[in-house]
């Protein structure tokens, strides 16, 4: 579980995040949604420690991320996995070497054991055939899957995903969403996904935090998002024609277009 309390962040006097507090549940896919420029990327960067908040607390299972001593912070970092928007695979390494990298850096396992673990992670994401290929030789979807395999190599407790579906076709997006969802349940991780893809929201949004103008404007689950009375959230959710039609169908009494699992 990750808890954030009164997070504030400003750049050159401009408030980007304003007093944000929430809890990201363990074993669930927690989604941060919002328009471009709403502050969700800044919040994600604060959560993973790439930016420091002006004030507030970040608690990883009651461990304060900001005040943690260096050694414990390093240990905590090995419990974190991250899936970047552009995958961020190391260009100079093959897919297998990319997945083995965190194992080589942070475990004392022998090479054979590290390879076995990497193979296991790559099989889990259905990428066993591409182990000797370089990132430049595989597709965007495969890169995301390789990045997921690297992120779970150390059995992390926390998984962060920044726009996991960006640049992917709808079908591949669905595969990546389901993979992240299944892995979250399997590893009992606290997963936080930064997205503005409404398909992902309706597919895997077990807990959703909507950020608007640097403030938490709404919090709930995917089954409540369609019936929310928040104007800002409705403007965001029903911005697309598809979702407007879904809303109209539901208002007209048709069966819900999205089945809630």
């Amino acid at each position, binding site marked *: 579980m990750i808890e954030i309390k009164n997070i504030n962040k400003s750049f050159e006097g401009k408030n980007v995040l304003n007093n944000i507090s929430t809890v990201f549940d363990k074993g669930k896919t927690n989604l941060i949604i919002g328009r471009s420029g709403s502050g969700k990327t800044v919040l994600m960067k604060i959560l*993973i*420690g*790439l930016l420091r908040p002006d004030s507030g607390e970040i608690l990883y299972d009651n461990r304060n991320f900001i005040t943690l001593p260096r050694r414990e*912070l*390093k240990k905590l*970092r*090995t419990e*974190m996995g*991250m899936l*970047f*928007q*552009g995958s*961020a*695979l*190391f*260009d100079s390494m093959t897919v297998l070497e990319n997945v083995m*990298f*965190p194992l*080589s*850096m*942070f475990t004392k396992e022998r090479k054979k054991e590290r390879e076995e673990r990497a193979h296991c992670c790559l099989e889990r994401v259905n990428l066993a055939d591409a182990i000797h290929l370089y990132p430049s030789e595989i597709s965007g979807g495969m890169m995301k899957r390789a990045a997921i395999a690297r992120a779970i190599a150390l059995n992390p407790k926390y998984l*962060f995903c920044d726009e996991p579906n960006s640049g992917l076709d709808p079908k591949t997006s669905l595969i990546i969403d389901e993979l992240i969802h299944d892995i979250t349940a399997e590893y009992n991780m606290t997963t936080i996904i930064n997205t503005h893809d409404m398909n992902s929201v309706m597919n895997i949004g077990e807990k959703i935090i909507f950020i608007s103008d640097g403030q938490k404007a709404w919090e709930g689950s995917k089954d409540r998002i369609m019936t929310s009375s928040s104007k800002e959230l409705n403007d965001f959710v029903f911005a697309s024609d598809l979702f407007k039609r879904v809303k109209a169908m539901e208002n007209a009494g048709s069966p819900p277009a999205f089945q809630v699992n």
Partner: protein
Amino acid sequence: MIKALHDFGEYVLLMYRTISVPERWSVFFKQVLKEIFKLGVDSLWIVIFISIFIGAVITIQVSLKIVSPLIPDFTVGYIGREIVILEFSSTIMCLILAGKVGSNIASELGTMRVTEQIDALEIMGVNSANFLIFPKIVAFVCFIPVLAVFSMFFGIMGGYLIAWTSDVITAAKYEFGIQYWFNAYYITYTIVKSMVFAFIISSIASYFGYNVKGGALQVGKASTNSVVMSSVFILTLDLVITHLMLI
């Protein structure tokens, strides 16, 4: 001025993070070996090529300028050797390597920065500066003496080639000239100087590449800036080191 001081402070802080005990020695040595091949061994051919031709041209130029009957012919070999050993194989070669190696380092790190690969390392808990930059500095500083020695040898051989194949000077006189009044300390001076320059090239290029903000355009700019700044520092330090070691 304030910006220059700020940049210098950032450079010092980056070097402080860079020069620390590696996370895993085995990974570090592997990285150093890889960088030796990439930055050093891959630069050998250009060093040899340039040295042969510059050595040959120096011999022709000097022989054409020495017209006085009071100056013996072997002076061509002597001057050629002094130029090659004292300045060419360290300073000029490092200026050339600032273009090849410096831009390679800056663009590699810059691309890693804009594609979030450096962020990925940081999130994993890896000291990215130490992991990425330190092996490059160690590899280049350790391998530069090899490049300098190759440059000296092939520079002098370039002149010898001209002595053999043309009539600007006889091979025997050139041979006598390159052995005349030889001071072995100059080799030490050249190697020390080239090692300092190697540190300058690799650390400045790393600084510019590591701190890229933006996209492809900024990566190119960082690469250019690293070459310009390295050249400025190489020439400045050339004067300082020469003053300290030769006067």
